[in-house]
């Protein structure tokens, strides 16, 4: 502090010099407003800073001198020679007041200087000045002398432009919240339709009750900066804390609406206990009426007691929770394994309970990390809006099933691929207005996004009604690129697959939007990385449709533990329709591997043979019927072990390059089981 004071003293002596030289100049040119202004400013600074560093006497005297010069500054009067010499004398006096620990002598000098100055002021201005310059127009409120608790009603309706000067109204609400117990309601009544919203404007109003021991002045002070840019009313409701008495609050609001006078609620004497029982029914009735009116009031003012039904949680915490749950599941299957080996009934009972709880825990954890797909769509809408403007195509986005929920990690990873697909559709898919009119299509293009849950998968379809894919063109490109021989005939489906090849593009020109189709390979691999699949269907001049299928969650699934030879595998339960036990005889390979089950011909794949090291064929085999697209397909295996709830771990670097297995899980015994991706398996072997 010392150094600041020393610096200040040096500054003040400079101020004195400046004042003296200015006063001498003013003597020559008494009407020079610039000089008067300068004198006024120096005094002003001295006054303010003097108070800061504890030179109160200096500050007080300069305050009065400043008031004197205000008279000349406002051109009410003209400086005369008496003023010049008076002020110069006062400055000499002030120099003696620049002391840190004033003595009585100093104080006497100060009061003399002040009274002399006031006399000078009186000489020029008959109306005594001090206290004349008004206070800020604050809202009048009732007396607030007592320090005990009181409840106030505050309405704070900021001007729309309040944000422009850097005001954040929320801080003021925070400040109030720190002063006492609050019941805060936010009103969005002034919110215009979305299209008219100006992000630089404030459309929110706040209505609140506060129970505090602070004075009304303190409450007013909260709003001191916004007093001119907001409608603020502060009204006392009660001389006690009634913030939890909804009936009182509601009655108050009712009175407000009907513009009736409000009588303060005073802290009454405690009701005697024995009377309570007798009066209770009656009281309840009154409370009932009041509560009813509170509901009616709420319709008008948006004021209701809200209960918290959702909280925000850091997504990192959810991830950690999910991780723990998946570890828990692994530990639990180990417990099951041990329990079934020990054959201890008590242990088995506990294990079973444990398993049930574990499943609930898993479902719960799972549910927590699901968020509606809607959040993704907002990004796409924005993209479509911005891009369609810039390339002069009118595109409408149609969505369906946006309430479908997906793991938030998947949604995050899905944003880029989806943006890419939509960007491609906008750029290459949907034709220009003229082209569309020539084809007699609606000049406005449509991109539709549909989401739905199918089993434990979510299916997202992104379709544009543009020009579709040109199969011939794709074929030519593929031949030119040396991907197929010129003689080879390919089906449309096979042609579409080329779209997903790295560096494959059919577009003639490079566009700034989506390049040359580069990236569809990236889209596919990121979808696959989430254990999902992507398909493409198209019809020339009609549509192009991408179908993305994704698992609900990335980490935990229900599966069927099976064995083939000595190895264990897992088939995700979601793809399984039925399981049959059949004689291996029936599975002897004929021309086409088809097995008749329940009178239906079913194509099948004998994994016992395909997975090589199978050894001796058992007499009986299981056929697991799985969904394959819209069809059923049989997988013949050796043994069904049991249903299994598991935490999937991604495969390491070693088995990459294969795509039959989408992951692995560690069994209770410590053994590894690979998770079969049935779609890939069937594609590859059939």
């Amino acid at each position: 502090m010392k150094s600041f004071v020393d610096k200040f003293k040096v500054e003040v002596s400079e101020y004195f010099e400046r004042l003296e030289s200015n006063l001498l100049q003013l003597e020559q040119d008494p009407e020079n407003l610039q000089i008067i202004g300068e004198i006024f400013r120096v005094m002003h600074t001295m006054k303010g800073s003097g108070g800061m560093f504890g030179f109160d006497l200096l500050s007080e005297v300069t305050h009065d001198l400043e008031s004197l010069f205000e008279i000349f500054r406002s051109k009410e009067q003209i400086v005369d020679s008496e003023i010049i010499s008076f002020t110069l004398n006062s400055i000499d006096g002030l120099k003696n007041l620049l002391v840190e620990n004033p003595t009585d002598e100093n104080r006497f000098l100060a009061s003399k200087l002040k009274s002399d100055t006031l006399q000078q002021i009186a000489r020029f201005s008959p109306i005594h000045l001090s206290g004349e310059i008004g206070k800020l127009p604050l809202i009048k409120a009732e007396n607030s002398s007592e320090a005990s608790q009181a409840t106030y009603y505050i309405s704070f309706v900021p001007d729309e432009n309040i944000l422009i000067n850097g005001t954040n109204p929320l801080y003021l609400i925070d400040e109030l919240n720190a002063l006492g117990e609050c019941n805060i309601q936010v009103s969005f009544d002034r919110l215009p339709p979305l299209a008219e919203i100006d992000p630089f404007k404030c459309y929110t109003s706040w209505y609140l009750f506060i129970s505090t021991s602070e004075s009304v002045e303190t409450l007013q002070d909260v709003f001191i900066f916004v007093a001119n840019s907001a409608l603020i009313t502060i009204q006392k409701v009660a001389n006690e804390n009634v913030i939890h008495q909804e009936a009182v609050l509601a009655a108050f609001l009712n009175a407000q609406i009907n513009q009736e006078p409000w009588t303060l609620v005073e802290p009454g004497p405690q009701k005697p206990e024995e009377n309570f029982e007798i009066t209770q029914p009656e009281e309840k009735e009154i409370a009932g009426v009041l509560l009813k009116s509170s509901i009616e009031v709420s319709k008008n003012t948006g004021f209701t007691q809200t209960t918290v039904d959702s909280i925000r949680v850091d997504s990192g915490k959810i991830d950690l929770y999910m991780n723990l749950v998946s570890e828990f599941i692994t530990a639990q299957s180990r417990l099951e394994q041990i329990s079934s080996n020990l054959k201890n009934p008590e242990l088995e009972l506990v294990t079973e309970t444990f398993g049930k709880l574990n499943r609930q825990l898993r479902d719960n954890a799972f549910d927590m990390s699901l968020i509606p797909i809607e959040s993704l769509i907002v990004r796409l809408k924005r993209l479509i809006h911005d891009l369609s403007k810039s390339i002069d195509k009118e595109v409408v986005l149609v969505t369906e099933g946006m309430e479908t929920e997906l793991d938030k990690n998947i949604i995050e990873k899905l944003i880029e691929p989806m943006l890419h697909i939509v960007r491609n559709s906008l750029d290459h898919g949907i034709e220009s207005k003229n082209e569309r009119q020539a084809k007699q299509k609606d000049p406005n293009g449509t991109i539709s996004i549909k989401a739905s849950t199918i089993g434990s998968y979510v299916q997202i379809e992104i379709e544009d009604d543009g020009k579709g894919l040109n199969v011939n063109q794709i074929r030519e490109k593929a031949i030119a690129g040396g991907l197929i021989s010129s003689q080879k005939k390919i089906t449309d489906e096979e042609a579409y697959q080329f779209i997903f090849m790295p560096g494959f593009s059919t577009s003639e020109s490079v566009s700034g939007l989506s390049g040359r189709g580069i990236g569809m390979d990236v889209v596919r691999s990121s979808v696959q990385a989430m254990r999902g699949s992507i398909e493409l269907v198209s019809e020339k001049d009609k549509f192009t449709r991408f179908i993305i299928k994704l698992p609900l969650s990335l980490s935990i699934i229900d599966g069927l533990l099976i064995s083939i030879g000595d190895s264990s595998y897992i088939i995700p339960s979601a793809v399984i329709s039925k399981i049959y036990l059949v004689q291996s005889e029936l599975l002897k390979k004929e021309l086409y591997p088809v097995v008749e089950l329940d009178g239906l011909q079913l194509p099948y794949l004998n994994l016992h043979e395909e997975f090589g090291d199978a050894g001796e064929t058992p007499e009986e085999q299981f056929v697991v019927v799985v969904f394959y697209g819209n069809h059923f397909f049989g997988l013949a295996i050796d043994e069904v072990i049991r249903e299994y709830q598991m935490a999937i771990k991604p495969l390491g670097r070693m088995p990459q390059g294969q795509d039959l297995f989408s992951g692995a899980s560690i069994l209770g015994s410590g053994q590894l089981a690979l998770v079969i991706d049935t779609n890939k398996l069937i594609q590859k072997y059939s």
Partner: protein
Amino acid sequence: MPKQILIADDSESIREILAFSLENAGYQVLVAKDGLEALGFFDGRSIDLLLTDYHMPNLNGHELIAKVRQIENYKFMPILVLTTEKQVEMIREARDSGATGWLMKPFNTEKLLQTLRKVIR
């Protein structure tokens, strides 16, 4: 990231005591000795609050605020003006040019920080 506050005041002692109090409270502080020097700091860097005196050489507070508010990045930055009581007219002028609020001299650290909390967190 600590919040960055720019102090503009022609009085060295005021600059220093403000800087001292604010740095102690965990803020990062920039100082300018007049309006023109202060204006030079608004070059796109992140400034969370401008705390400016009203009477300064070169550019006064009123002019500084008006100029700062014209720079895109600082349209919504809170600005507090240092003032003394009875300056209603000055406060009105400062608000019209774009100040968020004011800080009355004399003030102590507690009052300073309390006022700051009205406009930045």
